[in-house]
């Protein structure tokens, strides 16, 4: 367990220091969401209707930002060799890195989301529903992203490949995340239906992501 705690603490430290990805994600999220009212004009009912979708899209792109460096930096400086030689199972190490990534990029987005939602004319109920769906859904984005990050590890500029691999896989999460956020305010289905499927998608990705990413890393290190 101490090995996994060491990885978690190290990755979070690096992320919140200068040059880390934590602040970048929130700033990107803010900028994207802020641009939408400028592009659409001051149409309050329209903003209210598309608000959850915009926030979910921005959160999806923001959580991809720092993901391509997740394993690539460890590969470039030789840390990955030593991680592979460690006694901690690679699957758990990958999961610990994913957790660190979510705590430093996903969680700040969720905290910022209700405030940013004000720009899109979201009321308190819609904001609360959005926070709950993001809280459940963003771990899925991170853990699906782990697979892409592991596949792109040996490529110098793997960022674009990562997006191409990961974004199609996140479509179900996006669909049910936005559907649940919308269901809480405008209907027509009850909130529970899409939200339950979103929970299931997250649980599945928590299991599949670390195993697939660890398998990809082992394959590429050969």
């Amino acid at each position, binding site marked *: 367990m101490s090995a996994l705690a*060491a990885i978690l*603490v190290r990755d979070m430290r690096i992320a919140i220091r*200068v040059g880390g990805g934590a602040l970048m994600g929130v700033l990107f999220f803010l900028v994207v969401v802020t641009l939408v009212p400028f592009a659409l004009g001051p149409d309050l009912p329209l903003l209210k209707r598309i608000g959850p979708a915009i926030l979910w899209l921005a959160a999806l792109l923001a959580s991809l930002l720092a993901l391509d460096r997740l394993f690539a930096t460890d590969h470039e400086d*030789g840390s990955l060799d030593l991680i*592979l030689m460690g006694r901690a199972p690679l699957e758990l190490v990958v999961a610990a890195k994913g957790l660190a990534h979510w705590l430093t990029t996903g969680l700040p987005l969720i905290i910022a989301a209700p405030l940013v939602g004000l720009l899109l004319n979201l009321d308190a109920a819609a904001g609360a529903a959005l926070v709950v769906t993001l809280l459940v859904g963003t771990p899925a984005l991170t853990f699906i992203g782990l697979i892409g990050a592991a596949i792109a590890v040996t490529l110098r500029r793997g960022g674009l490949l990562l997006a191409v691999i990961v974004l199609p896989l996140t479509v179900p999460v996006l669909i049910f995340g936005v559907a649940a956020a919308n269901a809480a305010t405008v209907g027509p289905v009850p909130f529970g239906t899409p939200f339950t499927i979103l929970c299931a998608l997250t649980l599945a990705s928590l299991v599949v992501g670390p195993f697939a990413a660890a398998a990809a890393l082992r394959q590429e*290190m050969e």
Partner: protein
Amino acid sequence: MRLSTVDLACHRGGRDVFAALSFAVASGEVLAVTGRNGAGKSSLLRTIAGLVRIAGGKLTLEGGDPELTIAEQAHYLGHQDALKPALSVAENLKFWAGFLGSEPADTASADTGSALATVGLAELAELPAAYLSAGQRRRLSIARLLVVKRPIWLLDEPTSTLDAASQDRLAGLMRAHLTEGGMILAATHSALGLPASRELRLDDIRATAPATAEAAS
């Protein structure tokens, strides 16, 4: 404890790096792996470290911990220093002590202080690793071998970038490791400064396979 290979082969990037390589190293012994550039010195060390798949032959460790793989009982000091520039010298070392070691963190942190002093980096403990010179980075990597005890040291050109004083210090650390019953495999171009080191030349392995490495000393 005895690490031995029988007809070990390595295949990378579509070509045979070496084949039919047989040697044995026992506790308290050093094997200096020499050869020209590209002879497969690094590949041999990475194969033993479990980072390159074995293409043929056998690699066995007698007398080790049966619960652990060979890689989990070995330290690998490669060309890359595995340091994070954003973290301080002490934080880098504490991370590897926590990740590679099995002891609780509080005993490990006491060890990191003395290990940093041993490699001469004690006064730089709070400095971000980004500001270290190449030699200092290498010394910080060497400190990793001291905070976590593992019997097999796989050193890839350990003396490169080190000044004369640091090379002497490394030789002292290697001697101490050997007297504690450890074993060292070092890929090197220069003398290691150890009295009784055997040499494994990789140059002729491919030409005259099957060849058996003989003790040079």
